[in-house]
């Protein structure tokens, strides 16, 4: 096995059980916004409002 083949074995999706995801504000779209608010979980209700309108 070459080194590249050995490395390729590592290039797999991470175990989903170790990961989580949650919606955040669209503030992240703007590069100038770079603070804690960017990764604060967004309330589900607000998302639904936004998608509805």
């Amino acid at each position: 096995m070459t080194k590249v083949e050995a490395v390729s074995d590592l290039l797999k999706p991470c175990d989903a059980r170790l990961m989580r995801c949650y919606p955040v504000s669209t503030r992240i779209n703007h590069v100038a916004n770079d603070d804690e608010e960017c990764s604060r979980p967004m309330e589900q209700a607000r998302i639904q409002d936004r998608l509805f309108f």
Partner: protein
Amino acid sequence: MCGRYRLSRRKQLVEEYFDTVSDEPDSTPRYNIAPTQPVPVIRQHPWEPVRQLSLMKWGLIPSWSKDPSAAAKMISARSETAGTKPAFRDALKSRRCLIPADGFYEWKRDGKAKQPYCFEVNEGELFAFAGLWDRWKSPDGNWIKTCSILTTTPNAVASGVHDRMPVILDPDGSICGSIRA
């Protein structure tokens, strides 16, 4: 994929976590790291058992490139094809790196709207993207080091949001061997 990510831990914590050495100045917590910005990258020293942390520009410019403007499109490299793409082939063989992070963002398309999501590993713990790097000599003679994040198919958490996800390396053991050329 993954056009933005987060590294909110201070440099000292990143260095302790990944056991690195660095000459770079201290950095501020970042919540919205974007392409073309300088980002911390960890490389294995070529002959000493040391990992070095240094800053590189996010968006790989191949060493042979005549036009550095293509770098903005080279923020990620598909792991399935990196071994055959001229821009990434050599880097995959001999210029692999870790790109430390503690979160990343993907956008889910829903009709006209695009909803961003934050992804975390181990409840927001530090982790490393698998990356590639290269260096490019600018017309004024300066060497510019650049990097790209390897991507793969999404797992069950990511697939509901986007069709690709970054490769996240197992922080428990495989890191060291994986970046050694």
